[in-house]
């Protein structure tokens, strides 16, 4: 944020920052070695809905790309709308690298079509009996952990521990006030 923005108020929305998305590919090894957390074989990207032909066209484009991907890398996919009206692209692949590149491909094609603003987050679930979600916010350009416990609680202590273990390998959002949870993910 520039000095003028500070004086006059921000003049533009932050652009999506997806360059740090790939960090999870290497972080995954540490997660498994140090914490026993394994990828669940699925990942998802959440897109804010937009009523426009561009959106429909992009959605069709994404589906074409995913079809291609499912033939080449064997990545299964599913498109789903949630109760908030958001579009979820859920990918399934036992190979974690394929999942990461699949998520990146969807993010890039939306950004290329000028719909980068609509990207909400990417989610990588890990499990060791309990579920840990690494949420990548495109606006923050950073990850943060989300560990649900019970119906609407979250395990803050474990999340903070995850931050301390992973701080060197993952770009993690520093401000815990922005670690917004996502309930009832279609994952």
């Amino acid at each position, binding site marked *: 944020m520039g000095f003028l923005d500070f004086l006059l108020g921000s003049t533009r929305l932050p652009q999506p920052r997806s360059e740090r998305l790939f960090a999870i590919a290497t972080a995954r090894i540490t997660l498994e070695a140090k914490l026993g957390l394994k990828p669940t074989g699925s990942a998802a990207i*959440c897109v804010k809905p937009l009523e426009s032909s561009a959106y429909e066209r992009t959605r069709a484009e994404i589906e074409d790309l995913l079809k291609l991907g499912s033939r080449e890398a064997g990545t299964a996919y599913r498109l789903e709308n949630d109760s908030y009206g958001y579009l979820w692209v859920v990918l399934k692949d036992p190979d974690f690298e394929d999942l990461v590149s699949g998520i990146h491909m969807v993010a890039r094609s939306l950004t290329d079509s000028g719909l980068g603003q609509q990207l909400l987050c990417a989610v990588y679930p890990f499990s060791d009996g309990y579920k840990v979600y690494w949420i990548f916010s495109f*606006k923050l350009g950073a990850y943060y952990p989300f560990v649900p416990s019970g119906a609407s609680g979250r395990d*803050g*202590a474990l999340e903070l*521990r995850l931050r*301390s*273990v992973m701080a060197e390998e993952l770009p993690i959002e520093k401000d815990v006030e*922005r670690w917004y*949870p996502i309930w009832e993910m279609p994952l």
Partner: protein
Amino acid sequence: MVRWSADRGLQARMLLTMFLLAAVYLIFINVIMAMGVGIQGVVLIMGIFLFIQYFYSDKIALASVGARIVSESEAPELHELVGRLCAIAGLPKPRIAVVRTDIPNAFATGRSQSSSVVAVTTGLLRRLDKSELEAVLAHELSHIKNRDVAVMTIASFLSTVASVIVQNIFFLGDRRDRESGSLVAVWLVSLIVWIVSFILIRALSRYREFSADRGAAIITGRPSALVSALMKISGTMARIPREDLRRVEGMNAFFIIPTGAIANLLSTHPPIEARIAALERLEREIL
């Protein structure tokens, strides 16, 4: 694996602080004597104060916050926890006190390892789970193990004497002194002594907290427990939101909060952030 070792950094700093404080006070005494106060008077008064402070500091500290020593039958879990930690740390079990207040806090006091008291508040007991409480107790026991409580007690006493002189000097002495201006000189010297000792004590105080954090992490083997305890005490844990991302995105709340430099400028990032960062580094070392 990180093991317990004598914290050379802390030991060196404690020695340096005491040495510098002693130097400052020798100068202080010399100046007072030059003003015409007899050496016997100065030494006697300082000696009595130091004696009282040294032998009663723990009782004074406990009484000033309304702490009550609890017996094993009154707080069996707390005693059990402290006993176990002392076995790990190789310490005699201190007495345990409880302060009735909702402010979450804990402290250790006492002039030696065997006469120490660890006090916790009811607010702390209410907020922390067992592993977090264990971490906080281990932190206090590390203070005792590092013997920095006694150093701080003596150092603070000397600083207190200087501050008392600074604040009350014009009620002392007779008219002749006031007119000669010697009281002003003593006041000025006392002020300098007060400020210098204040800075020295603060610097040592910050360092000994890091040291005790490290000790706690080694005793419990879980730096993260202390991190979450610190976060709970400072309210960080409560700042993790519960509202769904899609809901706040809809309200555009995501952009309202200032980012980067301005957020840093506005928010207080007190030593607690630095302490957490140090613990996180330790967590990575231990793993």
